[in-house]
């Protein structure tokens, strides 16, 4: 049996309590029950075992080569080549540098198991010696992944996790342009051998009297928007059961934005240990986001808005959703 401290196959924080509630629709109430479907596995990796063991134990990547046509498939997902009358394939090692088959998508709004990991890329790399492309996560070593860093043809290096379990997530790719030549050349490069740019809070310029005056004006406008959002039932639902204290730092001053189960509030000032810090030199960016005139996500991508914790993209989405809900409600 695993020890109490061992990592679980289902994250404990994802598991809801037993419970139920009543939901009213057009004057009638309906029962809604907390529930789950779950199945545990001892999953046999069968013919894929050598591939996953090579990742875990040897930091090598295997493909399979058709003994007839020579096509090298990576990962080695067949033992016989369906193009050659099911001729047998043989395992071969391929390189750990390759190029992206196409520009990879970047996920900002992830499925519930991956919300701690956004933003991340997932694309297909054609490794040296391979004919097919393998799905991999793509990252940049330099802050938040945005479009343009990794594109079709970008040369990438496979990097190995330090803790490997014999899974596809034992590896990921970063652009070779972000690495030193010796790192690119090294076989079995591990994540700890890379200089990751840490999320440093960007500095703000010294405050001028003009900045302060503009700040006061913008805060007043922000408060008006917040009042409107709070008056919108649909927008309130977007932040139901959600609590966050956000310290917002701008060039003219700081403010504290609180989300408290359906209620949004904004006050000038600061707070000792916020759940999230936002640095927005131009407060107008936040105003526009909440007023549905621009996207906060895009502001993060274009470095006009900095957030201290990437998993808090969830909170950013909720704020954006409120803005859209208010806009929708105005149309209805």
């Amino acid at each position, binding site marked *: 049996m695993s020890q109490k401290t061992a990592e679980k196959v289902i994250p404990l*924080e*994802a*598991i*809801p309590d037993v419970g139920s509630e009543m*939901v009213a*629709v057009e004057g009638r109430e*309906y029962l*809604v029950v907390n*529930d789950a*479907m779950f199945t545990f596995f001892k999953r046999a*990796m069968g013919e894929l075992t050598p591939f996953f063991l090579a990742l875990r134990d040897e930091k090598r990547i295997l493909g399979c080569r058709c003994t007839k046509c020579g*096509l090298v*498939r990576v*990962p080695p*997902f067949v033992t016989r080549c369906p*193009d050659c009358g099911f001729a047998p394939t043989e395992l071969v090692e391929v390189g750990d540098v390759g190029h992206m*088959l*196409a*520009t*990879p*998508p970047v*996920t*900002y*709004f*992830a*499925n*519930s*198991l991956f*919300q701690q990991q956004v933003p*991340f890329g*997932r694309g*297909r790399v*054609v490794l040296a010696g391979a*004919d*097919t492309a*393998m*799905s*991999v*996560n793509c990252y940049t070593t330099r802050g938040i992944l945005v*479009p343009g860093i990794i*594109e*079709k043809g970008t040369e990438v290096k496979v990097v190995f996790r330090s803790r490997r379990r014999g*899974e*596809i*997530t034992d590896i990921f790719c970063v652009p070779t342009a972000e690495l030193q030549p010796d790192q690119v050349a090294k076989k079995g490069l591990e994540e700890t051998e890379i200089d990751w740019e840490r999320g440093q809070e960007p500095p703000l310029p010294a405050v001028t009297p003009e900045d302060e005056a503009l700040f006061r004006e913008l805060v007043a406008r922000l408060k008006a928007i917040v009042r409107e959002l709070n008056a919108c039932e649909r927008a309130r639902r977007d932040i139901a059961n959600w609590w966050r204290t956000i310290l917002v730092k701008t060039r003219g001053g700081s403010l504290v934005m609180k989300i408290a189960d359906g209620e949004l509030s904004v006050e000038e000032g600061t707070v000792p240990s916020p759940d999230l810090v936002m640095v927005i030199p131009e407060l107008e960016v936040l105003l526009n986001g909440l007023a*549905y*005139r*621009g*996207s*906060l*996500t*895009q502001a993060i*991508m274009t470095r006009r808005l900095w957030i201290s914790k990437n998993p808090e993209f*969830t909170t950013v*989405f*909720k704020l*954006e959703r409120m803005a*859209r809900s208010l806009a*929708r409600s105005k*149309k209805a």
Partner: protein
Amino acid sequence: MRKVGIVGAAVTPFRAKWFEKTYYELAQMATAGALQDAGMDVDDVGGVVYGIYNDIFQRACIPEHPLQCIIGLENKFGLRVSNGGATGAYAMSAAHAYVAAGRFDTMLVLGVEKATDCFDFQSMSATPEVIKTIGWSGDSFFEQKLGWTASDSYAEVVLAYMDEHPGDLKPEVTAEISAQLSIQARDNEYAQRRFDQVTREEVLNSRIVVYPFKELEICVYSEGAAAVILAEEETARAISRNTGQPVIWITGVGEANEPSFAGKNHKTMHRILSHHLAAKRAYEMAGIRDPLEEIDVVELHDAFVHQLEISMAEMGFVPLGQADSLVEEGIMMPGGKLLVNPCGGLIYSGHAVGASNIMSAWSARRELIRRGLRRALVHGTGSTVAQYGVVLILEQE
């Protein structure tokens, strides 16, 4: 092969959430509606093909088994089809084959999905859990653990297309299409976002969910059901005489499933060959040579606006690399040659997965009849990297 036509159809409202109904009742509503539309008794139906995509959404394996008696077809033929997003279109393709082959004179095609009972207790919202549930559809050895989603797998194809055709799929054009679809949804009383008309600027400003897709360029998950009744020629004509509604014949059907692995001898990432091949096969069967001239209505499975554009090109309405001409030359704009997604598409009508393509067929039939048009194309797409494609051609005599 016998001639097969649609003699009845119905949809339930597509909603973000049905607290008031389970999938049992949604299935029953659509069935009863389709039977009423066809003026038929359930005893006159030979069998049923169910379109239900995801077991987990219904919270049951073989979720169709309780439906057999709920829809009054106990002791009759019942086949469940599950083909990702293309489930509904494949269900109609299967029923067509059974009726055309003479196994049954009439068949019900019933699609239903209860997609948003899933709930993520961490973000306290449904969508991330819905996406996770669909995420179990990615390759279980090599992709699920990388955060595979339907969006990022379609985005792979779209970005690869944009690599090949950098001037196409301009943000202004995808935004214009989304805005146009939102206007068209107003005519669909069953649409989830019937009164959510958006401007091009709103679409352009909406947040990126998975690059390059913006929130207002992605279909919305729905709960709902849709049903059509197919009949062989003689039966169909008798039903038509009874109801006074014309038979809408299914004159072409085509399907293709591409490889899900990419690279040499596998998926060509910048193409959606499944849609190209499915359309080619359906056109051959229906005798269509020039789809732009010979088709009046397209009900296209618009999982994403960008994919709508590529699919239109793959199906031969515009050249590959010039899909923006759909808007720039007005082809799908008001007064243009084609009526594309008069129901608002899945982006505004909603995507109740197993029911969606059947809803599209319901809409295409409705438009042919009420506008007195000749031909419609119904399209379904599904699985990772737009792997599955199905096209049906509907015709009014």
